[in-house]
């Protein structure tokens, strides 16, 4: 089943890229088509991400660590633990409205449809391979007042199932509501609420953030619970950043290996994981349309947990109750991905409110908490731009009389 899924994923990905390329080519050939100025600030965006941590033998216990639920039978059954995940996702602007205020400010509203699929691949030496799918589709709305305030809402229902063996499919949802107050381009605050599974369980947490420094230059940003980062431009097209970020989720998993041995008849268990990553990330923004990033570092805190489906059946809002929890000593991790922005968008040069909108959108990753990066915010560097111009590049900017 998993092979089939992989084949289909690849086929759909190639088909989508071919279609986009074909539409792009034909639209350029069509001389009768009226060219309109772009309608949206966001372009349809695709992203993909791969994340991996190495194999660790079990047990790797920290004594008296919080969340640890010792169970020697399960520990001996699992033997070792390694994790990797492959994520693909998108967001597409559905609606953009600009409002010109009498004060001269331009406010705008953006409605985006979002979606992602993630294949989580936990590997335990003592049991069969499980490939766990999490797929989501959601909506996000962003209102930029054009002055100091930005409102952000996101609701993402998702499904989770095990592709390797038969189990129940769970339907859950995550969401964010926050207010961003941008005192000036170098200082912003965010307050709100987040419903998240990224700590390997279901939590409802306050969202609090502060950013110091301009988004197009070096800045420090603390966004609890999403990320703490110090980001800096390296030339015009590259951005580096030291960061600390939680990575995790809760996935449905088949109990075909009787991991939950106390109730072997239970068909489904939940697998929860969470790592606190400390690393360096480099984003190379090759153009407005395409960025790649690589990141690496170490996981300072790595947690694995299993939950019973039946015992949590009536628990629909609070944190889920574990029957097994394990903590691991630090290990390394590697993460890389790309972001592809298709089509034209409205210009946003020096529009710091829109920079803030983009940053909010990328910080709250789509579905799987993948940070797509801020490739649509141009780095502001002092070095003079040399465009290596040819006459055809500037002919529509220069009138004949300018030559005299």
């Amino acid at each position, binding site marked *: 089943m998993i092979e089939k899924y992989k084949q289909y994923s690849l086929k759909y990905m190639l088909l989508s890229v071919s279609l986009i390329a074909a539409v792009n080519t034909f639209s350029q050939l069509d*001389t009768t088509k009226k*060219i309109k*100025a772009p309608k949206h600030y966001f372009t349809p965006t695709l992203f993909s991400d791969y994340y991996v941590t190495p194999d660790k033998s079990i047990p790797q216990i920290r004594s008296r660590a919080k969340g640890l639920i010792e169970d020697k039978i399960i520990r001996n059954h699992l033997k070792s633990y390694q994790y990797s995940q492959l994520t693909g996702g998108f967001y597409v602007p559905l609606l953009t409205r600009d409002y010109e205020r009498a004060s001269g400010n*331009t406010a705008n509203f953006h409605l985006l449809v979002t979606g992602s699929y993630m294949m989580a691949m936990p590997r335990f030496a003592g049991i069969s391979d499980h490939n766990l799918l999490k797929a989501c589709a959601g909506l996000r709305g962003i209102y930029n007042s054009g002055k100091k305030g930005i409102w952000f809402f996101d609701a993402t229902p998702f499904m989770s199932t095990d592709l390797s063996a038969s189990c129940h499919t769970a339907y859950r949802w995550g969401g964010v509501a926050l207010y961003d107050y941008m005192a000036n381009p170098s200082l912003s605050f965010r307050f709100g609420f987040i419903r998240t599974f990224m700590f390997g369980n279901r939590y409802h947490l306050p969202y609090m953030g502060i950013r110091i420094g301009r988004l197009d230059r070096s800045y420090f940003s603390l966004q609890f619970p999403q990320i703490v980062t110090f980001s800096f431009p390296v030339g015009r097209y590259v951005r580096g950043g030291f960061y600390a970020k939680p990575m995790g989720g809760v996935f449905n998993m088949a109990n075909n290996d009787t991991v939950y041995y106390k109730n072997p008849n239970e068909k489904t268990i939940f697998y929860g994981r969470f790592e606190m990553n400390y690393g360096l990330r480099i984003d190379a923004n*090759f153009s407005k349309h395409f960025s790649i990033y690589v990141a690496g570092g170490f996981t300072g805190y790595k947690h694995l947990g299993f939950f019973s489906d039946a015992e949590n059946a009536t628990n629909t809002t609070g944190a889920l109750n574990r029957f097994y929890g394990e903590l691991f000593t630090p290990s390394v991790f590697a993460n890389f991905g790309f972001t592809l922005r298709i089509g034209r968008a409205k*210009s946003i040069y*020096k529009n710091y409110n829109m920079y803030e909108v983009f940053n909010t959108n990328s910080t709250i990753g789509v579905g799987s908490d993948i940070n797509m990066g801020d490739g649509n915010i141009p780095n502001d560097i002092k070095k003079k*731009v040399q*465009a290596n111009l040819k006459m055809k590049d*500037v002919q529509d900017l220069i009138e004949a009389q300018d030559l005299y």
Partner: protein
Amino acid sequence: MKNKRYILCYLFVLLAFLKVFPQGGKNEKIEAMRVAFITDKLKLITDESQKFWPVYNDYQDKLKAARQEFKKQPTTFSNDKEAQDYLDAELLLKNREYNLYKEYYEKIKKTIPIKKVAELRQAEEDFKKELLKQLQGK
């Protein structure tokens, strides 16, 4: 082993995209040059900048779309009708440029002081001269 295969496939896709999307297009560079040039000339304060750039960017987007549409016209003519179509399209472009100028002149006046609006016109002219200088320097 499977992970290695994944990573290799992934890197292959990345390299393919790098080939398709080369680093920063000429238009992006010219836009970046223009923005840096105008920012330097106008010396906008934060509040002015917050109001001015969204309106000015919108103006440039519409201007660019009108010019790109005109650029689709064939520049060799096999008959009089094609030549006439070209001239009509050019007239339409000039008309659109003028209308946009008039519309956005009013909008920009609401965002920055009138003195800076006049300086903006001068900065745009100076930017053209800067482009010409760069061309001559080749």
